[in-house]
Every structure is written in C-alpha cells, then in structure tokens.
C-alpha cells in the first residue's frame, strides 16, 4: 500500500516535469523541452571553437573563453533536450559565441553539431533537418564562465 502510494507520488512528480509525451510544458521565457537520446558517440571532432565576434552591448569582451573540449561536447549532448524551431525562435537566447564540429555515432551515422554559450545547440544526423537542442542543466565549463 505504502509502495503504491510512493510510486503514485513519484509518477505525479515526474509527470509535472515531463508529461506522458516526455516533454515539459515550458513557460513564457523557457521553451518546451522533450527528451533527446543519441546512440553512443564513437568520435567527436571539433572544427570551430571559441568562434564569434561579440559587440560591446553583448556584455562579453570576446569569445575566447568559450572553448569547448570533446568530453564537454559529449556531456552536453547527453544532457541536452530538444525543442521546436518556433519555441527556439521565441524563447532561446542567441549567443555570439559558439563551437561546431562533427561526430560519429556507434551505429556509423555521422552528424554535424553546433553548441553556443547560451547552452543552445543543434545537431543534424546524416544531413537531415537540424534538431534544436537546449541544456538548461549544463552548468559546467565552458557554459558557466
């Protein structure tokens, strides 16, 4: 009886954050986010790093601090969730600093990725339309600079 009640409470608390379709409802300032799962990443290649040219009104002197490592790309892609283009356009902050590259998945597929200082990003697998990503929980370097 107690176990059933605890399980019910757990499901209720989980469904508040992620509904049955595994998506959050979002808010006026935060996008709706859906669970995103990638197969194991076999290899990460960084093509552009610490890229971008901030203006004085961006509040950042330069993008040199946004230098991401391969392990951080993997960690980002493990923790990130996906959102829609509409939600991203309206709610995600655009950052002047970004990094991009390619990766190979364990099933052999290749993907192009882009990650920015605002913890938003995208991934296109085998040339398909980009999936837009956002990782509010990525409070690690180089995002926490």
């Amino acid at each position, binding site marked *: 009886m107690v176990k059933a009640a605890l399980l019910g409470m757990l499901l209720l608390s989980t469904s508040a954050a992620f509904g049955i379709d595994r998506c959050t409802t979002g808010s*006026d300032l935060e996008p709706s986010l859906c669970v995103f799962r990638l197969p194991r990443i076999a290899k990460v290649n960084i093509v552009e790093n610490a890229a971008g040219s901030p203006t004085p009104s961006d509040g950042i002197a330069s993008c040199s601090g946004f230098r991401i490592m391969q392990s951080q790309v993997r960690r980002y892609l493990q923790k990130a969730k996906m959102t829609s283009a509409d939600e991203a356009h309206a709610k995600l902050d*655009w950052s002047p600093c970004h990094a991009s590259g390619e990766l190979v998945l364990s099933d052999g597929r290749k993907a192009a990725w882009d990650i920015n200082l605002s913890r938003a990003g*995208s991934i296109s697998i085998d040339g398909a339309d980009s999936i837009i990503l956002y990782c509010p929980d990525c409070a690690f370097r180089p995002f926490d600079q």
Partner: protein
Amino acid sequence: MLVVNSQGWVIDPRIRLAIAANVERGPMTHVHGIVVHQTDSPTAESAFNSYKRAAAMGAHFLIDKDGAIYQTASVFKQTRHVGRLKARCLLKQVCTPAEVMAYSHFNAESMYRREIRKSVPDRFPSNEDSIGIELVGEALPRNVPEPDRVYETVTAAQNASLKWLIASLSATLRVAMTEVFRHPTVSYKNRTEASTAQW
C-alpha cells in the same frame, strides 16, 4: 492618429484585423516602446498557423511581404514577443561598477532578472510594456547552424508599411521614436533579425 476601439483594436482601412487570442496575455496598462521583429517563417500563413497553438508566441502586428498589415493582438494586451532583456546600460555605456561586475560573466537569465526590476528608459521596453511588430521573413539557409543564418531582406513594401505603422502608433500611444528598437538590440537574438527594417 489611429482610432483604437475599446477592445484595443485599430480601426483603419490599412489594417486588417486578425486577432489571435492565443497570442494575448494579461492587460498592458502602459506602452513604453515598440520592438520590430522578423518571424523566421516563410509566409504570413505559417505565422498565423503557429498562433493557433495554446499559449502561442507572437506580437501585436504582422506585416506580410506585400506590405499588408494585420493586427494580431489588442494594443491593450501584453504579448510575449521580447524574451529576456539585455542590459541597456551596456549599450549606453552607463553601467554602474556593480553592473559591470555582474555582467562580466555571460548569463542571460540573471541579466534579465536585474533588468526587469528597472523602469524605462533605464531598461529596454519589455513584454509587459511594449508593442511588437513582426515582419514576415526567415533566417536562411535552413541547413546551417542558427548563428550562421541571415534574415531575408525586408521588402520595400514592408518597410513602407512599417514606417507608416510606427509613426501612427508612436503618435497614438505617445511612444518616443527613440524607444523603437530592433529585436536584437533589446534581447539576445540573431543580429540580422530586422537589420534591414527601416522606419
């Protein structure tokens, strides 16, 4: 001067009413600014379709590529068209030492929390006190990462309508022309959004 009825709808032959209730939020008691956007969609229809969703994001007016002006929300209602605010003191170069320190580490969320406590003109106009105007146009090409996309050039017909609409709203709602901004000026958005808009 525009004629605005009790519902906040503009009654003018140049403006077509296309009110989308899902875009409207709470009452807007003061208008301190106007923010100019681009939709990042190819047609007016695609924008209207997105307004049918619950809690849709949109603005008060939409200008199609042929210059047709639609009112999509009451001017007495807030819409969620701005997002998180940038620090206006950075643009004006008048930040206090504490602000300089706080803003030296990029964090759009904490910057917004500080900014929204201020009043215009110390901060940029926000969702709570500004009119939004959307211009139909998308950031291209779609197959490159967002930072590398460039918004379509605003058409001459759109710019003519935008100039008339902003002048009319400014006079009617008593908004100073100095409080009219492109979206990327007030929020962290693609720098090319509305960059070719003229008013």
